[in-house]
């Protein structure tokens, strides 16, 4: 039998339908791969028994001819998605042991589509980070290694467990969430495809909230077609989420193969700041050439407020997070820390939250509390909301002139797990190219486009206007074909 973990979702789907192997066999192959790759620390919780049970149900549905769009496909679920009866931690000590009595809308849709969950994927605590170093459950290792350098690399973050598991062939696809780049940046670091759809495409119901006005779920896969297949199942209107769009779900897979002939591709000059990594710049230029060769027209555009996006994000996201994370107080679920007997309620809150949250989470809660506090709201939060409006308008104006925008996904390739990351701002800069689209609420995807001189993956980012994921997928697929990216082989 061919190595089942090497298959794409599209191929596995067809072969399952042809009964070339069973869903259970496919799941077993991936459980075995997971077992062999425990060193990656990609999973916080594995659900092998549940996976086998669900794979058997999938096989029964194949027998009955009632298979769903993702029937029998083994997936990993980021541990930010609440999964019924399965521990959900958000990568945090404060939620350790929490078993939600409900299933997130997105994971439910995948389940309804027949997908088989193999476990819950590691992540930066509460999705705050770009390296996966902030997980309470330890860092995730990137399955890629630098050519001439020892040491493990970070997978990026916050969906680092998802990216590593997909790149390392432990799962066929995974869910991620992206607040400022948390799908796209780790996809770039791990050489896979990551898609953040338009804000409002995927329901946020049942996803542990980080920054509500920015959080979006999306697929992470080894190729563009698989991402289109997964996203079609994941998204759709959810009456339980007031920000979910009441729009019909396009068949994203059907949009593939249409090419980019005649499309105008915006190249924002602000994404080429002084000191941009030469290899990243060169790959970007290559991407422009590939699209041109395929019949698209590159157009230089300006997104004048790009420089302000990151500081805007670091006001808006922590402000929302400071409020969203107030519910972790040791009363109804998760960790509770008590001092001496007779300790007050407030003291219990403060001790619980001090012990339960990690350094970066605490830092962001404090920043968020500060920018919302009396006397500072206008100067920070309101100001950031206004700049956010300007950033969104930059994109609206740009999409009057172009159909899609091409940029690098991240300013660098994956860095070392042990590289000292003491400067929070240096870490924040990882998301400099992904954050603007998050603030604007537009869709964005990262496609693996090449390797740097150290043999590490670099991604290109494709952005389109709201609700136009179809054009985004078309551009991504053309880039994918042209790049002929040397994906990792399944681990032996």
């Amino acid at each position, binding site marked *: 039998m061919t190595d089942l973990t090497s298959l794409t979702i599209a191929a596995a789907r067809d072969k399952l339908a042809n009964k070339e192997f069973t869903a259970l066999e496919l799941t077993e192959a991936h459980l075995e791969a997971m077992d062999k790759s425990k060193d990656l620390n990609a999973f916080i919780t594995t659900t092998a028994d549940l996976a086998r049970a669900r794979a058997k149900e999938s096989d029964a549905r194949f027998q009955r001819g009632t298979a769903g769009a993702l029937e029998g496909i083994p997936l990993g679920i980021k541990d930010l998605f609440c999964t019924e009866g399965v521990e959900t931690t958000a990568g945090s000590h404060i939620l350790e042991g929490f078993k939600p009595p409900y299933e997130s809308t997105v994971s439910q849709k995948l389940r309804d589509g027949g997908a088989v969950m193999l476990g819950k994927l590691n992540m930066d605590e509460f999705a705050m980070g770009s390296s996966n170093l902030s997980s309470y459950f330890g860092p995730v290792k990137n399955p890629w290694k630098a050519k001439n350098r020892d040491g493990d690399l970070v997978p990026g973050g916050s969906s680092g467990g998802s990216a590593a598991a997909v790149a390392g062939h432990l799962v066929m696809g995974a869910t991620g969430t992206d607040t400022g780049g948390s799908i796209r940046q780790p996809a770039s670091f791990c050489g896979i495809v990551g898609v953040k759809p338009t804000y409002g495409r995927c329901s946020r119901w049942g996803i542990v909230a980080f920054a509500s006005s920015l959080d979006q779920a999306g697929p992470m896969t080894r190729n563009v077609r698989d991402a289109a297949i997964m996203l079609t199942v994941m998204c759709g209107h959810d009456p339980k989420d007031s*920000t979910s769009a009441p729009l019909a779900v396009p068949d994203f897979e059907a949009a593939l193969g249409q090419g980019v002939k005649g499309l105008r591709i915006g190249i924002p000059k602000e994404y080429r700041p002084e000191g941009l990594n030469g290899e990243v710049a060169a790959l970007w230029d290559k991407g422009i050439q590939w699209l041109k060769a395929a019949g698209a027209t590159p157009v230089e555009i300006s997104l004048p407020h790009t420089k302000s996006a990151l500081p805007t994000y670091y006001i808006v996201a922590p402000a929302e997070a400071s409020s969203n994370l107030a519910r972790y107080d040791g009363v109804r679920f998760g960790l509770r820390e008590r001092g001496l007997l007779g300790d007050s309620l407030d*003291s219990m809150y403060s001790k619980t939250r001090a012990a339960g949250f990690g350094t970066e989470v605490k830092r962001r809660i404090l920043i968020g509390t500060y920018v919302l506090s009396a006397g500072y709201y206008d100067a920070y939060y309101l100001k950031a909301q206004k700049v956010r409006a300007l950033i969104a308008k930059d994109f609206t104006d740009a999409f009057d002139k172009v159909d899609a925008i091409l940029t690098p996904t991240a300013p660098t390739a994956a860095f070392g797990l042990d590289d000292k990351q003491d400067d929070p*701002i240096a870490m924040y800069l990882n998301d400099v190219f992904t954050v603007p689209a998050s603030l604007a609420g537009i869709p964005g995807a990262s496609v693996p486009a090449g390797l740097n001189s150290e043999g590490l993956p670099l991604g290109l980012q494709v952005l389109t206007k709201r609700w136009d994921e179809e054009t985004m997928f078309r551009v991504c697929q053309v880039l994918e074909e042209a790049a002929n990216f040397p994906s990792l082989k399944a681990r032996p």
Partner: protein
Amino acid sequence: MSLDNATIRRIATLARIEVPAAELEAAAAKLSGILSWIEQLREVNTDNVTPMSGGTDLKLPWRADIVTEGGQPDQVLANAPEAHGGFFVVPKVVE
């Protein structure tokens, strides 16, 4: 903007996160650094700009007034660190 220890203490109290005295200085330095970096936004002209407060410009959906949830106290209490007689239990609050 540089934050002094008293300010850190105040926001830590608001956020209910205990910051040990020994860590105040370091926290103040880190947070001050981030805040001064954020303050570059002051240079952006935002006169007459309507703030963008949400991620989307859709219309707020309304739901019908019908009872669809509840009647599941066991599930509501299932993850509680302490529960008793159908109630959540917290350290005594004095009003």
